[in-house]
């Protein structure tokens, strides 16, 4: 039977489930052990979304999701470059994680109850808050969602967006025609060529496509407002608590570092700080790393090699995308980013 690559990936899960040996795995951190032996973190990322994960002309990956892969590699392996990126489609991503093809899924993935439970996954703290947004050609004369009745909408299959727009249009008793294509290039291309009136996805993904994929960015506009809650976070397989904890606390390191004023530039000086919180975080005092199965300097390396959350945000959403931080600000500045106590 001729199948697409994606289906093969999915078949691989079925195959793995069928042939994997039945005995239960060892208790002492199988993922951490495998990562250390391999010397590489396998990280599932988006195939290409500006600001989250995109490979440049040299094949070097950049983006907010990518930086969390790098942060984990810095903490676990001591080098933020020891990451193997696996670009995954929206449909392949969960099977890839479930079957062990990747160690972590940092791929604009919305945390939902079903994914957390029925899919056998766990999610770290949200690394980005966004919501479903719509981009349209200015020429169609639509300025709000109510103007979109009867429109053809390009959307990724298997995404939360797909369900959000179904609910949104149904609640407004409006008709629409979904066009679902899994390949990011094909989907955005279909919108740009005029197959769809609307491109729907997490709103944060839209400015990149407007800036870089449109022949004339000024012909397009992003409809103001977001139409769902999309907390994006890093996913891991359920059942490996230690690895889950590492993902969780590496994320909190980036939040706390920003709150406490530690950046990649001043992290060495900050080691001399009198603040006990900073001393614990950077491994000057205490043994936080050992509790996660890591060394003393794990958090120091995250900040040194990747940066605090503010630095990560600015390097990916600064110019030319210029996406305002909004609710992705620290809680101290009116946002939702809240680092948990590291003690």
């Amino acid at each position, binding site marked *: 039977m001729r199948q*697409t690559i994606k*289906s093969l990936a999915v078949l691989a899960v079925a195959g793995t489930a069928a042939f994997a040996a*039945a005995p239960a795995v060892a208790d002492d951190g199988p993922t951490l052990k495998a990562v250390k032996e391999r010397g590489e973190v396998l990280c599932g990322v988006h195939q290409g979304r500006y600001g989250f994960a995109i490979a440049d002309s040299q094949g070097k990956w950049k983006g907010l999701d990518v930086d969390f892969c790098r942060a984990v590699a810095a903490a676990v392996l001591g080098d933020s470059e020891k990451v193997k990126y696996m670009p995954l489609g929206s449909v392949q991503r969960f099977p890839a994680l479930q079957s062990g093809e990747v160690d972590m899924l940092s791929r604009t993935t919305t945390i939902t109850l079903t994914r957390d439970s029925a899919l056998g996954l766990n999610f770290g703290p949200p690394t980005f808050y966004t919501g479903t947004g719509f981009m349209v050609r200015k020429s169609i004369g639509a300025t709000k969602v109510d103007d979109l009745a009867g429109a053809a909408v390009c959307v990724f299959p298997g995404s939360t967006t797909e369900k959000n727009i179904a609910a949104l249009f149904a609640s407004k008793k409006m008709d629409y025609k979904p066009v679902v294509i899994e390949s990011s290039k094909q989907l955005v291309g279909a919108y740009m060529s005029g197959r769809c009136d609307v491109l729907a996805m997490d709103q944060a993904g839209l400015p990149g496509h407007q800036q870089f994929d449109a022949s004339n960015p000024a012909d397009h506009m992003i409809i103001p407002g977001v139409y769902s809650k999309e907390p994006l976070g890093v996913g891991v397989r359920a059942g490996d608590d230690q690895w889950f904890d590492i993902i969780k606390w590496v994320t909190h390191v980036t939040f706390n570092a920003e709150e406490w004023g530690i950046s990649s530039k001043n992290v060495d000086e900050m080691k001399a700080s009198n603040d006990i919180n900073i001393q614990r975080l950077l491994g000057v005092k205490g043994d936080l790393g050992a509790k996660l199965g890591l060394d003393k300097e794990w958090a120091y390396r995250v900040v040194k090699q990747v940066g605090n959350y503010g630095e990560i945000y600015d390097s990916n959403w600064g110019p030319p995308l210029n996406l305002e931080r909004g609710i992705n600000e620290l809680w101290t500045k009116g946002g939702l980013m809240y680092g948990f106590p590291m003690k």
Partner: protein
Amino acid sequence: METKNKTDESIFYSNAFRSVAYQAVLFGLLTLLGWYLYSNVNENLARQGIATGWNFLTTSSGFDIGESVIRYDAGDTYGRALLVGFLNTLRVAVLGIVLATFLGVFMGVARVSSNWLLSTIASWYVEICRNVPVVLHVIFWGTVIHLLPAPKQAIIPFEGAFIMNRGVVMPFPVANDAYVWVGVALLVGIIGVVVLNKWAQRKRERTGEYIPTLWKGLGVLIAPPLLVWLAFGAPLVWDVPSLQGFNFKGGLQFSPELIALLVGITFYTGAFIAEIVRSGIQSVASGQIEAARALGLRPGFIMRYVTMPQALRVIVPPTTSQYLSLTKNSSLGVLIGYPDLVNIGNTTLNQTGQSVEAIAVMMMVYLSISIVISICMNIYNRVAAIKER
């Protein structure tokens, strides 16, 4: 069966016993393997905390589908969503098989034609289309359609029809109760044609008199539905598509995804069928045709009564394989966004996380479609095979 060896009557040396025993052991091993795989899947899924079972089929899907031959919305179940996908697969497969057969037979006959232009075009078609991967065919046509003008600047081949980057729309008669009876009458017409042909054949075999049935047959075919339609007062209202808001509403609509997929797999498979038809025609010994000519048979007669019956023996079995691969190639629709079974199956497994079940559904459906096609073609093959008289 009795053992030949009279000196040893032991049951272990009995052929009958042995054949049964071997099969029983093999069956047992296969069952054990199946059971092992099944329990292993369950155990591993349970250990990973992944939901299992078929309950998802009856829960609401929450996503919409671009085109469907049955009514469907986001409030319907995953089971119905998969049914929509199955029907979409079936639609493109049936249309593809019909179109590829016409194209293939035409090109195959053209390749052996003595007309230089015709045979050259046919051989170029075959060489280009069968040497390009089918994936590229599909993506190529998908791109071509996206390059067509927008709905407001649509190409209008005739009044009421529009060709654009949103597909092709054309007027279609509004449904009417009378059409059911017209359909029945058409069926009567088809039976009439079959009876007419049989009668003409008997008469020819008995008397040698040739009765041309083409025009008579056409009359028998068309007259009953036409009369029924007139008897109902010739009801005909065209549902003419019109541009409302962003898109055309009404009429008969073909989405760009359906067209791209259909054209892609038709061109690809048509090239293979053309080669099969050509090889079938060329497999008929030239002496047969010369003999038929010597008897004074007309060219059409030679094709129909001498060449084709022998060529079909060669043509039908490999064509079955082409039909099967066309059906399976239709799963490439996912690449361009045609909502076929694989497309919806993938979305389902991603929304529910139940990959094993979703894959199982897809495999069972493709297997069933393939088996049905095989059975139909085997029956046809038996009809087409030369009967020794």
